[in-house]
């Protein structure tokens, strides 16, 4: 989950956790690193098993990997 790992998660670039949706996942990450959720709302993007998923209510059932990415601005 570069580059958020060093900023929020003590350098861990992989975390194992269970959650039903991205909302749930962000909540759990925020418990690990308070402040992450606020930031994620404006700065983070998620991909579930390789597919960008802007809708955080999307189900994580059956998903094996969620990639956390910074949102990139264009010109």
């Amino acid at each position, binding site marked *: 989950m*570069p580059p958020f790992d060093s*900023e929020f998660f003590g350098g861990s670039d992989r975390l194992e956790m269970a959650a039903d949706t991205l909302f749930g996942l962000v909540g759990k990450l925020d418990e690990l690193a308070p402040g992450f959720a606020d930031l994620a709302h404006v700065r983070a993007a998620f991909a579930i098993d390789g597919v960008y998923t802007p809708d955080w209510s999307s189900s994580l059932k059956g998903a094996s*990997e969620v990639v956390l990415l910074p949102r*990139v*601005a*264009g*010109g």
Partner: protein
Amino acid sequence: MNAPAEKKLFRLVGTRPIRPDGIEKVTGKAIYGPDFVAPNMLQGAILRSPHPHARIRGIDTSKAEVLPGVKAIVTGADFPELDSAMVAGGEAPANIKYMARKCMATDKVVFDGHPVAAVAATSATIAEAAIQLIEVDYEVLPHVIDIEDALRPDAPILHDDLFTQGLPELPTTPSNAAMRVEVRRGDAARALSEAAAVFSGRFTLRPVHQGYIEPHACVASWHADGQAQIWCSTQGHFTVRALTAGILGMEIADIRVVPLEIGGGFGGKTTVYLEPVAVLLSRKAGRPVRLAMKRDDVFRATGPAPGAVIDIRLGAGADGTISGAEVEFKYTGGGFPGAHEVYAGLHCTMSYYNVPDAHIVGWNVLSNIPTVHAYRAPGAPQVNFAVESAMDELARRLGIDPIDIRLRNIARPGDTGGMGMPHGAIGYAETLEAAKAHPHYSAPLGPNQARGVACGSWGNYGGPSTAAVSVAEDGSILVTEGNPDIGGSRASMAIMAAETLGIAYEKVRVVVADTSSIGYSMGTGGSRTTFATGKAVIQAAEAVIAILRERAAKQWNVAAGEVQWGGGEAVHGDRRLSLGQIAAASGTTGGPISAQAAIDPHDYLPGFGVHICDTEVDRETGQVSIVRYTALQDVGRAIHADYVEGQIQGGAVQGIGWALNEAYVYNQAGLLDNPGFLDYRMPVASDMPMIDAVMIEVPNPAHPYGVKGVGETPIVPPLAAVANAVSGAIGIRMCDLPITPDRVYGLLLAAE
């Protein structure tokens, strides 16, 4: 690629009709930012800091206030106190506190040209005179401009409450390094130690400006009920609305932003500089206020793109396979934190090569220049210059053709990208193969000429867009969208709507609506508009078709499911009803016909370009001329071919300018020394050859017509393409931009 059989899939997609807004723009009728006039309008002027770094001890506006004709004066004290908070109004989130201070200084100025006060008066002359009467008591502070200077332990610190983000532990001393980002995969150090060839180098670039010809301008009118209207030239009027509301503490729906025609942006008009100030002036004066920049204001105080210092180590095996990479890039951030170029830099560093072992670190470093802002593929060209220069060196050292070494490492669909995501339907290899087969690549070279090749990519974007399609009573079509047309997008929207509806292009008219007249649309940027807003237009058109089939079914008294749509007509057996006939009957079949689509697509795909550049070097003077240039790009599929080629050509020439001549030059006092088009040398027509733009069409399966964004990618390859050509011509690696004649001359002299 450009197979004729595939072209026949579409009637209009890929053709070159005349743009709907064309006549207004070739006759001088189109109204751009500086052209708009509101009744009873006042003229504004902004007082800007003459110092790069100073504390404001006090501002005395009393003399200006009594000047006849002055109607309002605004300083930082008139802005609401804001806490740090991220606002997601633009395409990238922005810290609203810094955004406000960029528009108007409060306690400190942090760059030459930083606004400190503004005046509205009955004429521009009076407004200009009034700002001269404002007395600012500055405590001048030591300043710092360059990246390495700003990182020194004894450097002047811009913000004593700013601590480097992104470090494992939050530091305890303030720093000009606002942000550190990092990606590490595999073991780059080990991979490099085992490589057959390793190139190590340091590359530097100066800040450059977007260089749009239209200076920023707006008119704001505040109404006594607390609502405001803004007319301005912007890439994103919804962004202007969100940021102005955030800065001034207003409700978003209380601000209506009307987008005027925009005279270029290239990323530079995805933020606010003037609008919140104009609204405050209007609120004080009770009349509409125009604020417009002069050219030197644009250069001194609006976003340049970051300069950079980039250290790279790139290793490859004897067959040219990249084994490992270590890249550390430091980008200038300007006066305030928040620049996003470092993230894009991470994304873009070798994103199109398979490099399993890599360690990439990026820094955003503040200094006393304007807060950097997005410029076409923001953050990508700088690091790509280093990467593609290093690739060129590895090819040379290993004796491999420059395109072959890139083909050996190029990512293909299904390969895992650097951020852990699998690549989709990318056309990287196809584009490289086309470059290799292009006649330019094997054409003979003249004396003192050499050829450079470089690749480049940009991730592109999708994001939120709203579009409405309405059927007029006679069957003509109105498309309403929320994206300012910066380079022909009305034409693309009309083509996609007409293609979908099965009607003539000329039957469709396109309107870019204000923020109160269409739903939210992210700005025109990120190479997203033809993709995302195009998808919204297509979906709205499809919804209209569903209504048209129902209406025809009603007239025929059959089930809607039995009615087909084709060729612009409803079809049921032998019966036909044209769009015009259905529209004419709408009054008796259920009323007006229209549909809206509000979407947030993220199934975009990146763009990829390969540029071939021939340069000729005058070894006595160091003068470099571009003698031939070819730019090939995977465009997905071109909707309007002229404007796709135009994006490729324009982006390439911007990149050539960046490579050869463009640079911010600050003097010893920290003041911008070249704030005009004479000494900020953008390419002129006589500097350039024709730019052969070659469209490679590897469609995006997630878009009905295969669109991939095209606007940003073409500025990424030219820096290295030019530098590689010059390096080949004189046998010295060009590590520093711009490649000015005196720099080339100096290198040749030193080599003798």
